[in-house]
């Protein structure tokens, strides 16, 4: 696809896409490491878009290119109509970026950090306070405390306030919930939902597959390649096979024995169940066959339930097929 890049900054601003990424690639170590490999996707205005993949998938490199901190080896991308290479200044003044590593000033207090970032972007804390109000009230009791002395959860809230204080058009959040417990993760996603309702486009990355369903659309990434871009619902609907959740009294033996059931059947642990992926969806009767098989092997308390896949099942399917 040929594109008119830099010149169109103003005119293409009205386009529906807030972000358009066209075949970007990035290598390190003189080409030895392909961190991002021919990646393309778009993000609509007002969308909550997730980059879902494990460590090393290339998520941070994509963030750093879109926030103009890293140049792609090839390919082009625009953010709010601005080219990431030629219009980097416009992008820097209009986006918010929360990197994976805490990067505020450790020896400034909460309120000093916030004031500093507001001033840097030619605005004031008061002007955009409505954007951060419900996050800031949670850390306001400690506003005289230095950032370096805050707990992990408070640091994260302060970083989010600082990334929001200039009312960014796009908010980039690189793994904001990594290493965070399930309760705090849930609260963080509730905050993202409220920001989205205020009209901010959000691009967020995460290694937690269960967070995928909270995004409008997601890109599943592994080893620098996009495996799929769609709504979580569509990705699940596109799952080609029938999936079963299987359980029996002796789970450890069940894990070991299932691979001997049929060569074409993939099985893996999934919480309290083992998921069994029936490749031949038309060859029904799998359920009955499986129950007979497990019965003959002497298993007790056998359960075989047809289920719909989760995003994690879809990811596993893409990685193993």
């Amino acid at each position, binding site marked *: 696809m040929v594109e008119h890049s830099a010149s169109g900054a103003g005119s293409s601003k009205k386009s529906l896409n807030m972000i358009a990424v066209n075949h970007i690639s990035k290598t390190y170590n003189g080409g030895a490491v392909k961190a991002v490999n021919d990646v393309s996707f778009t993000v609509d205005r007002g969308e909550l878009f997730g980059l879902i993949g494990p*460590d090393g998938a290339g998520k941070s490199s994509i963030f750093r290119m879109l926030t103009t901190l890293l140049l792609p080896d090839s390919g082009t991308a625009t953010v709010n109509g601005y080219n990431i290479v030629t219009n980097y200044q416009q992008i820097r003044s209009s986006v918010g970026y929360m990197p994976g590593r805490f990067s505020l000033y450790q020896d400034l207090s909460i309120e000093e950090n916030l004031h500093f970032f507001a001033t840097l972007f030619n605005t004031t804390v008061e002007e955009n306070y409505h954007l951060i109000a419900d996050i800031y009230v949670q850390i306001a009791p400690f506003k005289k405390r230095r950032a370096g002395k805050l707990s992990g959860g408070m640091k994260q809230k302060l970083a989010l306030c600082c990334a929001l204080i200039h009312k960014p058009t796009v908010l980039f959040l690189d793994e904001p919930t990594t290493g965070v*417990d*399930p309760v705090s993760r849930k609260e963080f996603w509730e905050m993202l939902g409220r920001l989205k309702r205020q009209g901010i486009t959000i691009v967020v990355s995460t290694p937690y597959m269960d967070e995928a369903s909270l995004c409008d659309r997601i890109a599943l990434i592994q080893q620098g390649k996009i495996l799929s871009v769609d709504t979580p619902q569509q990705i699940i609907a596109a799952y080609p096979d029938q999936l079963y959740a299987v359980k029996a009294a002796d789970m450890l033996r069940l894990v070991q024995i299932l691979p001997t059931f049929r060569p074409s059947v993939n099985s893996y642990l999934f919480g309290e169940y083992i998921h069994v992926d029936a490749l031949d969806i038309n060859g029904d009767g799998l359920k009955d066959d499986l129950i007979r098989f497990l019965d003959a092997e002497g298993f007790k308390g056998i359960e075989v339930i047809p289920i719909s896949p989760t995003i994690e099942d879809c990811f596993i399917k893409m990685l193993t097929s």
Partner: protein
Amino acid sequence: MNSGETVIKTANLTKQFGDFVAVNQISFEVYKGEIFGFLGANGAGKTTAMRMLCGLSIPSSGNATVAGFDIYRQPEQIKRQIGYMSQKFSLYEDLTVKENIHFFGGIYGLDNQELKTKSDALIAQLGLQSEAKTLVRELPLGWKQKLAFSVSVLHKPKIVFLDEPTGGVDPVTRRQFWTLIYEAASNGITVFVTTHYMDEAEYCNRVSIMVDGSIEALGTPQELKTQLNETTMDGVFYQLARGAKREA
């Protein structure tokens, strides 16, 4: 799976930093060959408790024995009986695969002959023959974590402590990692593991959940779900931890 032999026993174990009670009178037992999930919200006191059990931090009060040794009087003996791995620090990035195995094996007291045979066996078992001389920094995260775990049990410790071993790992590798954990447990190694993945809580024989320094629940995943009337461990965790007062 578990023989009933107790390998960790704590009684009112407490750690205080000034006015702050990080770990508040926790009492529990862990049995030989068991996979014990040690769950809790960020800031609940898990790491502090683990440091005491590893002989790295002296409790303020209470008692505990690990592998039969007293944590006040015999921390050095404890260190020889355990393995440890965390997501943050496990291997030296600027040593090769083989050098790391030799280094940690040596630290854990294996002699040269054992080191040679065990490192060759381990490299073969993990399929890392062609990477033996590769710097660990250049390995994909999943391989690194599998290697780190294997190194931490190379000396056949009584107990291995795993602190968020699977964070950030892809879902296929995460499951391969748990296969290694099951193998270790079936060889009689007790596994003491923390995780933020609630599906992994289901893979444990028993789990405890810490909230604000105390153990609020302890049992098999099924027992906890029944007790709290939840269908998933996620629900159990949420119900217990959302009331936490402590700022994470």
